[in-house]
């Protein structure tokens, strides 16, 4: 009964690996860009605040699948040749997820008391030094549970790279299904794989939430 899965296991798991890789890039880039976005959203300089706010509000109203398509169409024009779907997808994800991480970090930044920032400035630290050594570390620690949750969502979202033909797990499952026609087993398998990773991730997030609730240190 599980033959369809077992025979195609390396092929399917190879696709799953692609999802993981895409998620890794999306998270690394999304967190970095998201930090800049978060800082931009609390900036007092209007030429920073307004463009960043526009960017965030724009992208949060559009389906990710459309953003994936849009970059798929845009990038060949910008770069001058056809693009590897992985690269196009990675860029879409980084730009998209950065808005969500940015908003999470913004909440983290805003939870830091103004006087703490004043204390840092009063010792002569510059904005850049204060942001790097004080704002970002504290915000990351405080918002860790939310960031883990968002990372899980990002991982789930990598399945959408299906639409530009990326050889990730969902696409490979449909390919195998078109040959084997064991839909129930195959789609259950991919569902269970995602479920396990995401469930573990959500438990980790809850663990950190409990920990910070009890400690109340930061």
């Amino acid at each position, binding site marked *: 009964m599980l033959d369809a899965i077992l025979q195609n296991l390396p092929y399917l798991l190879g696709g799953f690996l692609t999802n993981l890789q895409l998620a890794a890039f999306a998270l690394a880039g999304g967190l970095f860009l998201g930090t800049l976005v978060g800082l931009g959203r609390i900036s007092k300089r209007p030429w920073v605040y307004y463009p960043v706010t526009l960017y965030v509000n*724009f992208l949060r*109203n*559009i*389906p*990710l*699948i*459309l953003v994936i*398509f*849009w970059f*798929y*169409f*845009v990038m*060949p*024009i*910008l*770069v*001058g*040749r056809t693009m590897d779907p992985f690269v196009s997808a990675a860029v879409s994800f980084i730009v998209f997820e950065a808005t969500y991480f940015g908003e999470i970090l913004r909440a983290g930044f805003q939870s830091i008391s103004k006087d703490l920032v004043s204390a840092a400035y009063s010792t002569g630290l510059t904005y850049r030094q204060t942001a790097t050594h004080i704002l970002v570390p504290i915000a990351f620690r405080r918002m860790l549970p939310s960031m883990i949750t968002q990372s*899980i969502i990002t991982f*789930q*979202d990598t*399945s*959408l790279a*299906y*639409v530009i033909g990326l050889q990730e797990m*969902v696409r490979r*499952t*449909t390919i195998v*299904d078109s040959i084997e026609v064991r*839909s*129930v087993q*195959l*789609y*259950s398998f*991919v*569902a269970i794989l*995602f*479920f396990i990773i*995401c*469930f573990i991730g*959500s438990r980790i997030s809850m663990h950190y939430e409990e920990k910070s609730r009890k400690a109340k240190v930061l």
Partner: protein
Amino acid sequence: MLAYKFDWGVLWRQPYGEWLLQGLWLTIQLGALAWIIALSLGVLFGTMRSVRFWPLRIIGSLYVEVFRNIPFLVQLFFWFYAGPMLFGKTLQFKINAISGLNYWVAIFALGLYTASRVAEHVRAGFASIGHGQYDAVLSTGMTPLQMYWYVMIPHALRLIIPPLTTEFLTIFKNSAVAMTIGVAETTFMSYKIDEQTFHGLEATTGAMVIYLVLGMTVVKLMDFIEARFRIPGLMSR
């Protein structure tokens, strides 16, 4: 930079402009109908997660965990490709022959998925109402079922209008995924325009504008509902 001639006229040239608008109509249908399922099931499972009777709590939690931790695309494919097979060999072919099956499966899957998120908001709403009201209502002799139906659920729903607005917006965004099973909604149409004209960039940009406008309309609608059903003295804007 590749030499690319922009052709923004594609957006309102027939039949392409009309395709996008037809797609919008379908997006609205998908979102609205799925939302009805999502609200009903979400309230049901959210309530189940909050009652004292633990078997119901377990069922509710199971539902939420399963539907929250699997990507929507995977759920959609499961129901569309594997779903008919669950009915056995004879029924399976009859089901697959239904015209517009993808439309109904999309609404069903979207509703089921979103319900798990609504359930969490409902649970949070109950948690914030607090124990006192629970005890007060029960002491007037109502059964728990009556209490939930007449008091707790209406109260919680008003409290959670902001997160529900986010979910309502999200349901329209997720409706775009239905394009993968051939539902002719907005995103599908923009892709189709690209297939015909090779001007996918303009088409998808146009689709983005459509989603933006739709989103703003939804927010205005929910603002209106919130104002209409506001609980005086409970929260200020």
